[in-house]
């Protein structure tokens, strides 16, 4: 157990008016046996800081009872000193009527909990993982090339694995790319040969073509990768991975309704591009130069029967290919049939330039069928949305703008030797699962970053940028692993879970539930942590029925001590409610309620958690055995549009709750005494009603039957 803490209580910002600070001091000195107690009217100000600077010493924990831990983090931080913050400002002074007995009790209980936490907190000892700084890039298309070059130019060795005999991916097979610079009028050469030359001649990059990754084991900073070339296998130590395995065109064989396979003169946009690059646009059937070419958009995309998503680049590609037709065959006509013409951003200027061409015709419409005509033409049946009539378009060649399927849809590529399986987890369309909006690179496999069209459909220029971004993330994860720090979202956290394996029953829940696949099985079947894969969310700690998993500064033991630290009154008029809240979203919402001076029910004691997924259900049992009348679990939205920063935390909490309810039934405790609520960070306005309604419900239910035992 750590030493008794020094306790500092700030009376500023209304705390002194809301509660009796001298009584808090007496509590700290007496019951809590603090090593020292001081009150100050302005603890974060220059005088307060000076006071603290003179007192704090290495090894002795400090409890700061003042404002929210979300402010003044830099003020109340000293190297080598454990600091526990007690939020008397937002959670008491700003959200309770001043001077009430209930507010005083609330403040006292928060202080008790803070001291209890401090006594159960150790300074975390980091576990650096730094075997290799090399970056593995899988996929030698434009995003992989950009990633390899990016990492190498930043000073890291790179091994680039490409399954084809040559580098360049799809882009090397294209005639031109979309215009990338003002005035955005003309397709431009890809420059891919130059990029390939820079990669192959770079002293830090080792290129392996006709090669595939056979297995990937280990963790950030220390992956062991087996690469197979023919019958030859070689092993590489790498620190991080960029997954740039790209995309493939949607199988046109499934597009018979668009004429594919029914006429040789119905081709995919990929085949058409290759034809142009080869130098001559001609009909596959008879080699004749076509005079009329139709481009059919959304061939497979935006179609619930095929690819429900939009493949993003096909509209612009068809605009470009229509220009090819006009350049190579000046008297030819091109028709583009689209649902919505999608040329976002400056792509609009390119779109306008194509519209200026008198030989290119654009029509919003639904293609209802494509079939061979009697004279060797192709007939495209279009329900023209604008004219509102059925049009039969006779063309010599029809080009299907086929959509993009991510390689990860069915290819694990890395063949991870992870207990949770060989693939990076994907969303329903096969794209690697990520937070998607704010933190698009964060996959569910730490140190492995997807880039390019495997991540989202995107054009070549965007894919190159994406490769650079993924290279940065790879380098970052290597550096952070070397410092023993967690990566996003608990960036910099040095703590990691420790396992008291003597009591492990090998139930495997921790290894199965970890959202990031950080745990494998060791040879005895007990969990083996890969520290630098771990994001420190504590989901494993929440999962373990034996309570053998804890962090130096966050544990079931610590949380139990906190909820056992305060007295629970027997008075049925004074129920007590515990709110276990996610510290990422729900806790800041409580703060904002305070900042807006919204009144919260004083029966509720807030206990922050790293993630709702870290809530071990034993804590709920502990709470009821102590006489707590009700327990609120407040976390982030789960499901398809999950908001949990640890992906599955709140979902797992929900699942565990079902088991808790069965236990409650056995104990004859009403199910309503535990409630799980989804709350977004901006939903602070819901908190007054949410807390008071729950407390009122507990009053109606009457006291917890175990109260007083």
């Amino acid at each position, binding site marked *: 157990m750590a030493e008794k803490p020094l306790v500092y209580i700030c009376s500023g910002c209304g705390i002194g008016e809301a509660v009796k600070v001298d009584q808090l001091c007496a509590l700290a000195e007496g019951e809590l046996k603090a090593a020292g107690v001081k009150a100050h009217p302005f603890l974060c100000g220059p005088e307060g800081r000076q006071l603290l600077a003179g007192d704090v010493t290495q090894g002795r924990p400090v409890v700061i009872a003042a404002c929210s831990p979300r402010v003044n983090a830099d003020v109340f931080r000293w190297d080598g000193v454990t600091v526990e913050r007690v939020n008397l400002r937002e959670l008491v002074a700003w959200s309770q009527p001043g001077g009430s007995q209930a507010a005083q009790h609330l403040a006292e209980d928060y202080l008790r909990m803070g001291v209890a936490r401090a006594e159960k907190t150790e300074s975390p000892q980091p576990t650096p993982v730094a075997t290799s700084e090399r970056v593995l890039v899988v996929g030698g298309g434009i995003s992989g090339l950009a990633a390899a070059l990016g990492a190498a130019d930043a000073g890291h060795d790179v091994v680039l694995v490409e399954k084809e005999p040559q580098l360049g991916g799809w882009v090397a097979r294209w005639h031109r790319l979309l215009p990338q610079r003002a005035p955005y009028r003309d397709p431009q050469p890809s420059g891919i040969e130059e990029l390939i030359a820079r990669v192959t001649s770079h002293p830090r990059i080792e290129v392996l073509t006709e090669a595939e990754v056979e297995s990937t084991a280990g963790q950030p900073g220390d992956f062991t990768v087996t690469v197979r070339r023919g019958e030859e296998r070689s092993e590489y130590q790498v620190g991080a991975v960029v997954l740039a395995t790209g995309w493939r065109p949607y199988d046109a064989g499934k597009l018979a309704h668009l004429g594919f396979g029914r006429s040789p003169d119905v081709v995919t946009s990929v085949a058409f591009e290759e034809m142009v690059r080869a130098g001559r646009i001609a009909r596959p059937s008879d080699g004749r130069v076509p005079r009329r070419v139709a481009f059919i958009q959304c061939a497979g995309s935006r179609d619930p029967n095929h690819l429900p998503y939009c493949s993003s680049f096909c509209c612009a590609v068809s605009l470009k290919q229509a220009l090819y037709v006009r350049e190579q065959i000046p008297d030819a006509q091109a028709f583009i049939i689209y649902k919505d013409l999608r040329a976002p951003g400056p792509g609009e200027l390119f779109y306008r330039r194509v519209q200026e061409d008198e030989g290119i015709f654009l029509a919003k419409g639904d293609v209802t069928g494509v079939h061979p005509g009697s004279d060797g033409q192709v007939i495209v049946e279009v329900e023209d949305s604008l004219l509102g009539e059925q049009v039969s378009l006779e063309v010599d060649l029809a080009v299907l703008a086929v959509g993009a399927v991510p390689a990860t849809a069915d290819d694990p590529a890395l063949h991870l030797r992870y207990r949770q399986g060989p693939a990076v987890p994907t969303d329903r369309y096969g794209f690697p699962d990520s937070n998607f909006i704010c933190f698009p690179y964060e996959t569910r496999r730490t140190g492995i970053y997807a880039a390019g069209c495997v991540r989202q459909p995107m054009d070549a220029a965007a894919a190159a940028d994406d490769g650079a*971004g993924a290279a940065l993330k790879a380098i970052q994860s290597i550096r952070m692993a070397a410092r023993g720090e967690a990566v996003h979202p608990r960036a910099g956290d040095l703590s990691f879970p420790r396992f008291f394996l003597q009591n492990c029953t090998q139930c495997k829940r921790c290894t199965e539930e970890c959202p990031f696949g950080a745990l494998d099985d060791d040879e005895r079947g007990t969990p083996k942590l890969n520290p630098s894969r771990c994001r420190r969310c504590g989901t494993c700690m929440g999962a373990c029925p034996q309570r053998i998993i804890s962090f130096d500064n966050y544990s079931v033991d610590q949380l139990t001590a906190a909820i056992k630290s305060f007295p629970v009154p027997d008075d049925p008029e004074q129920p007590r409610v515990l709110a276990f809240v996610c510290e990422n979203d729900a806790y800041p919402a409580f703060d904002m309620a305070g900042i807006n001076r919204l009144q919260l029910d004083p029966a509720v004691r807030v206990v922050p958690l790293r993630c709702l997924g870290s809530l071990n259900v034993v804590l709920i049992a502990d709470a009821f055995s102590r006489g707590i009348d009700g327990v609120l679990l407040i976390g982030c939205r789960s499901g398809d549009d999950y908001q949990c920063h640890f992906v599955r935390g709140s979902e797992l909490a929900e699942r565990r709750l079902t088991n808790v309810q069965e236990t409650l039934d056995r104990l004859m405790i009403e199910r309503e005494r535990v409630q799980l609520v989804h709350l977004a960070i901006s939903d602070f306005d819901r908190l007054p009603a949410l807390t008071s309604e729950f407390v009122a419900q507990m009053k109606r239910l009457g006291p917890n039957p175990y109260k007083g035992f």
Partner: protein
Amino acid sequence: MKEQSLLVIGGGIAGLTTAIEAAEVGREVYIVEREPYLGGRVARMSRYFPKLCPPYCGLEINFRRIRSNPRVHVFTMAEVERVAGGPGNFEVTVRQNPRYVDADRCTACGQCAPVCPAERPDDFNYGMSKTKAIYLPHALAMPMKYAIDARACLGPQCGKCVEACPYGAIDLTMQPRRLTLRVGAIALATGWKPYDASRLAYLGYGSYADVITNVMMERLAAVNGPTQGRIVRLSDGAPATRVAFVQCAGSRDVNHLPYCSSICCLATLKQARYVLDQYEQADVHVFYIDIRTPGEYEDFYARVRADARVRFHKGKVARVAPAPGGGVVVEAEDMLSGRKLRVPVDLLVLAAGMAPEVGAGDIPGLDVAWDDLGFASPLPDAGVFPVGVARRATDVVTSARDGTAAALRMIQLTAS
């Protein structure tokens, strides 16, 4: 040799991402932000598409990453005045505008604002509400410190806030300061502003109170906005159940913004959801040229489209007139049905495009290429990397990618 520091101009989502990603690799990074808070435009959004999650959620994580990372140095209310030198040895002059509140002493206790006699239009709410001259920018502001708007403040002769502040944090005589930052590379993350809707007079903006822009709609829907999240007519506060959206208000128009602003279709779909979620009897109309929802955003479009209370009309709005009893009447032709439409609505929302906030000449000495559209792209070997909407109109995901990629390029350039 010590690795060189980096500068990020602008503390919106693109700039924050650039700075944090670079700092977590190990670099010292400065963020120079003009506003008194970080977060930029996204801090003023109610929700993000397509998940309808609040931007504060991701901002909170980013702010925590900054708070726990001593390598990130933030200057708010600061502007870059001049850039000298070149890659590897930039010398950047920053003007730190007076906050009139000492950030080391302000606790955000809020004693000052109630005694302040002066008011200012709240630019955070696009002028739809007022704050006192001394104000907290918003409830999740980073830094959580008050600031004084010098344009509204009555000055030292008033001084009521100075008396009210228990912590001696207010100094009404504070002067601008200049400081010089020596950095190896620069990211330009100056972002965007909504296209000036007063130039769209034919759509009634400026003439009728119930014609608003999409950024105003975000504030109406936000729980910390001027109406606490109630979507109402600005003319009389009545519930706005009938709402029409005009796409490409300014965008895709050679007389205004010749480019597509990329995000307005999705913003409108999202705002349609705000109305649908708030009012059972919602009646929503969207006037568009093309609905542009690339990639997996298509799912979001499909879900909104499936709601029978939303109708999509391909066509341009011809005329907007006041409606008896409040709201406006929108006249348009639906090109698909060929029908002329007269739609009475409570609110008409103009999906105004994104215009770059900073342009050529605004930052002397800054070596980037400005195109005719007003966006910036990098010059070879200049050491300046435009990111996010400074580069082209784009969404949050792409801004995050830009920032991450720029962090790499800055680190490459200055690798020791």
